Each structure stands twice: as structure tokens, then as C-alpha cells.
């Protein structure tokens, strides 16, 4: 029996996902030993955030065939919402240090970001994607792509017009002593932001796998006519999917506000990084997106550490080019159809 498991394991290591994950783990361990535990911490925090944004992107692409280039702006909406909820809370907490808001205030801000993203997503579906879908689905991928680029420009400039171009940041969510793990000090904010993203990604995965609605979303992504003839209300599912995808990006923006302040084009970097993840891991694959997120995060952290801070976009981009040339379906995407394969 144990021999069987071993044989399965070696077979898995030889596949593309297995090989790349083993390499990633080895590199993480080597770099952590060489440079210090902060490599591991940074990879995990960045990876957790990226996983949230990338899962949303995967959802938009896999279920709705929308190549979403406005996803970073929902990250921005999330961080902005969290900022405007948390600033008054932190002022209140300064005067009332014994209040329950010391502990739960940040959670309110992050939940606010989640809801803000969900509402913004629903509004975009009602005002933008829905009307386009009803008008014509010819050339859908191209048209919806152009539309998302337009939405991105619009939202960036709306932010600048209404809230100004300055950085809107906070000092920190949770004050307190950093936690010490194996000689590395991790601030409470970093640890909790990772826990939040881990919990949300796990909940989202369970939702997609086991609930009736999650299964309906997967059904729509696999065969939209089939979904319609079993009685799934397509319009409702599409609305829900866009809302969910945007909420995932927004909650990432909200929970990282202590690290990344909100400003008009704050979403561009997470957007590009999330696209790297989606290309790396293949389309419509949630677990693949999570694994890919940590790989891209690792790549970024390693590049900053050993090559230089200015190169953190160059190295991942180069890798993406190689992957597109040699394995266009992505590392985890072998059994998933691409948008253009239909």
C-alpha cells in the first residue's frame, strides 16, 4: 500500500504541476536558509493576497469568458472603502482605547471592503456587461476585454477626480507586539492578513465544490446551454459570479491597506501579477490559481532579494513568455479548456 502511494507520488512529481511545486518549495527553503525567514513570510503574505485577486480573475475568465483588465480597480475600491471605514474608527479608538473596536474595527473595515467590492461588481454587471451581453455576444472575448480596459481607465480617473491623487494609507490595523516564529518577527497585521486570505480562499473553494450555487457556477462555466435546460437562472449566476470575483479582489485590497495605501492606480500591480498567475496556472482552475499565486509571489520575492528591486516585473514576465511558448495551457491547465478553444 505504502509502495503504491510512493509510486503515485513519484509519478506526480514528474508531471508539470508536481515538478514546479517541488522546485518552488525547494527554492523557498534554500532562500529562507540563505537569506533569512523574511523570504518565507513575504512570499506567504504576497501569495495570499495574489491568490484572492487571481481566483477572482480565474472566475471571470473561466465562467464568463471575460478577460478582466479592470480587476485591479476593484482591489482599489476595496482599499478605498477600508480606508474610509477605518479612519474614523481609528480616531474613535484613540479617544477610547478600551473599546471593542480596537480588536474588531479592522475586521469591520475589511468586511466593508468585501461588501464594497461585491456591490461595485454587481453595478458593473448591471450597467456594463449585462447590456453588452444582451446586445450581442459576437466577438465576446474581444469586446468584453476592451470594455474592461475602459472601465479600468474610468475608475482610476474617477478616484483621482473625487478622492484626489494622494496616498490614503493607515499606520496599521492591529497594534501590538509582533509574533516571533523561529527567529523571524511577523507583525500582527501581516499574520492576520494572511489568515484572512487563507480563510476566504478556503471558504470560496468549499463553496464552489459543495454548495448548490457553487456547482451551478461551475455548470454555467462548462456548458451554458446545459445549465439553462436544467433550470439554472443564467442571469442570476452571472451577476453572482461577477460580484464574487470583484469582492475577492476588494477584500485583498482592504486587508493589505496597512501595507499598500490607496491611490488611483494602486490596482495595476496586483492586476498584472494576477494575470501572471492565471497564465502560469491555466484558466478556470481555482486550486491551480492558489498554487500559482504562491509561485509568482516567490518569484517576485526572490527577484527583489537576489537580482534587484527594479527587476520584480521583468523576471516573472520573462517566465510567462517561456510558459506561453512551451506550455500555452499553463502548468495546471492541461484538463481545462481555454476561452478560445470553444
Amino acid at each position, binding site marked *: 500500500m505504502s509502495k503504491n502511494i510512493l509510486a503515485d507520488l513519484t509519478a506526480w512529481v514528474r508531471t508539470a504541476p508536481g515538478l514546479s511545486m517541488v522546485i518552488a518549495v525547494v527554492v523557498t527553503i534554500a532562500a529562507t536558509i540563505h537569506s533569512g525567514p523574511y523570504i518565507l513570510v513575504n512570499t506567504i503574505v504576497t501569495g495570499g493576497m495574489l491568490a484572492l485577486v487571481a481566483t477572482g480573475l480565474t472566475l471571470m475568465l473561466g465562467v464568463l469568458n471575460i478577460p478582466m483588465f479592470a480587476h485591479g480597480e476593484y482591489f482599489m475600491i476595496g482599499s478605498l472603502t477600508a480606508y474610509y471605514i477605518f479612519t474614523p474608527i481609528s480616531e474613535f479608538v484613540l479617544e477610547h482605547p478600551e473599546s471593542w473596536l480596537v480588536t474588531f474595527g479592522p475586521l469591520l473595515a475589511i468586511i466593508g471592503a468585501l461588501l464594497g467590492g461585491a456591490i461595485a461588481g454587481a453595478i458593473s454587471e448591471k450597467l456594463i456587461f449585462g447590456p453588452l451581453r444582451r446586445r450581442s455576444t459576437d466577438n465576446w472575448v474581444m469586446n468584453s476585454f476592451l470594455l474592461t480596459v475602459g472601465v479600468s481607465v474610468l475608475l482610476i480617473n474617477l478616484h483621482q477626480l473625487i478622492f484626489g491623487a494622494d496616498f490614503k494609507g493607515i499606520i496599521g490595523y492591529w497594534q501590538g507586539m509582533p509574533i516571533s516564529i523561529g527567529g523571524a518577527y511577523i507583525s500582527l497585521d501581516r499574520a492576520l492578513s494572511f489568515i484572512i486570505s487563507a480563510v476566504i480562499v478556503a471558504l470560496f473553494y468549499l463553496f464552489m465544490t459543495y454548495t448548490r450555487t457553487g456547482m451551478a457556477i*461551475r455548470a454555467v462555466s462548462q*456548458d451554458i*446551454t*446545459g445549465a*439553462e*435546460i436544467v433550470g439554472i*437562472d*443564467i442571469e442570476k449566476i452571472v451577476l453572482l459570479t461577477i460580484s464574487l470575483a470583484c469582492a475577492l479582489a476588494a477584500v485583498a485590497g482592504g486587508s493589505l491597506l496597512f501595507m499598500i495605501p490607496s491611490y488611483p492606480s494602486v490596482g495595476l500591480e496586483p492586476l498584472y501579477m494576477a494575470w501572471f498567475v492565471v497564465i502560469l496556472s491555466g484558466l478556470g482552475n481555482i486550486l491551480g490559481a492558489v498554487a500559482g499565486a504562491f509561485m509568482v509571489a516567490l518569484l517576485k520575492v526572490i527577484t527583489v532579494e537576489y537580482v534587484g528591486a527594479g527587476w520584480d516585473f521583468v523576471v516573472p514576465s520573462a517566465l510567462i513568455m517561456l510558459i506561453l511558448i512551451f506550455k500555452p495551457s499553463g502548468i495546471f491547465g492541461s*484538463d481545462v479548456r481555454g476561452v478560445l478553444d470553444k
Partner: protein
Amino acid sequence: MLLEVKNLNAGYGYLQILRDVSLQIDKGEYVAIVGPNGAGKSTTMKTIAGLISPMSGNVVFKGEDITGLSGSAVAKKGISFVSEEMNLFVNMSVQENLYMGAYTIKEKHLQTERLEFVFELFPRLAERRKQLAGTMSGGERKMLAIGRGMMSNPSLMLVDEPSFGLAPQLTTSVFASLEVLIENGVTILLVEQNVTKTLAVTDRGYVLENGKIGLEGRSADLAEDSYVRKVFLGV
């Protein structure tokens, strides 16, 4: 009267396929629509199922006008459509596909009851409940599509070309499974190219040609009709 289609005109875009198609089905009947390629058989089915909205005419189901409702709304009324392409969820297991078929049923225990019923009808599906639908053979997929259609406990099943692309042996087993459904009191509207076989098993039939109903009557009579014999059976 379970289903009544009155003077239905439908098509794709500007292309009209169906011209004044009318038909009726009573509860418990096994009715066939036969006709040559491109006659509009599948279009008729898709229009009843709500996947195409008609240009004019009415579809009345259980005394209620369901013309122009969306596919999902029609499914909720109790019409289940087994399409020619099957439209299975290929990356889901057999069991997940079947549970999706019961999407309109909210109560968990009713879903389980239906699942057991379908597994009883098609023991083959029970054996393969964990397998992905996309990895099954053509005949098994057809069974799964019919099984999925049964999951919602429909009053009427529209079955489009169940023998399409199947080996003759499998065709026989698919027809046998439809027979079982009829014995269980399901009403079926069947579209088929295999005219001999279809007219042998069904109660009544409609002959569709160029988007119009040419002939209608008891299947046994249609099979004897000299025109049908000449055009479809080549004798």
C-alpha cells in the same frame, strides 16, 4: 392536454425555419416527430424548451401560456429537454451531473430519492458515479443525459435524436431506456431520424417537412402510409 403548440413560427435571426407548426400531446403519451434533415425538428424542440424565442404562435403547457419564457423558466415548469448535443457538464462527475439535473428541486431528500430512481433505471450510471462525464463513452453519455433529464421529475421530456452518433446496439439500449420511462408514466416527445424504429415504438407521430407539419396520426398508420414509406423508408 399536457402540451399544446399553436401556429408556431420560429427560426434563427432572420431565417425562419418553422411555419405554423401545431401539435398536441396528452399526458402519458409517447409522441414522435419524424422528418428529413433540416426539416425543423430540433428547432421545434428548442422553441418548446425556451432556448429559441418564437416569432409568433403559442406554447401552452398544462393550460399555462409559456411562450417566450427563458430555458430555465421552462425547466422550472416541468419540461425537461435532452438535447442532441447532450450538453453535459464534462468536468463534473456523473453524480454531480445528476444532482445538477435536480436543480429545480430544493429539498435534499427528494433529490436523493430521484438519484436512487435514476440509478435504478440505469445501473450503469451507479457504477460510474464518480467518473467525469467527459471521459465516458457515447452511449453512457446519452444515458447520463437522459438520466439528468429525469432528475427533475418532469411532466414532459423532450428527447432530441437519442440515437445520433451511436452504434446500432447502443441505439437499441437507449430506446429500451426510453421505454422504461414511458412505463413509469413519463410523457415523451421524441425526435428521431431512425424512422422505422421510432414509428414502431411510439403511439402517435408528426411528419415535419420544410418546417411544416405534413402528416399526423397513429404511428402504426404512419408506418403503413405509402408517402412516408416512399420518402423515409425508401420502399
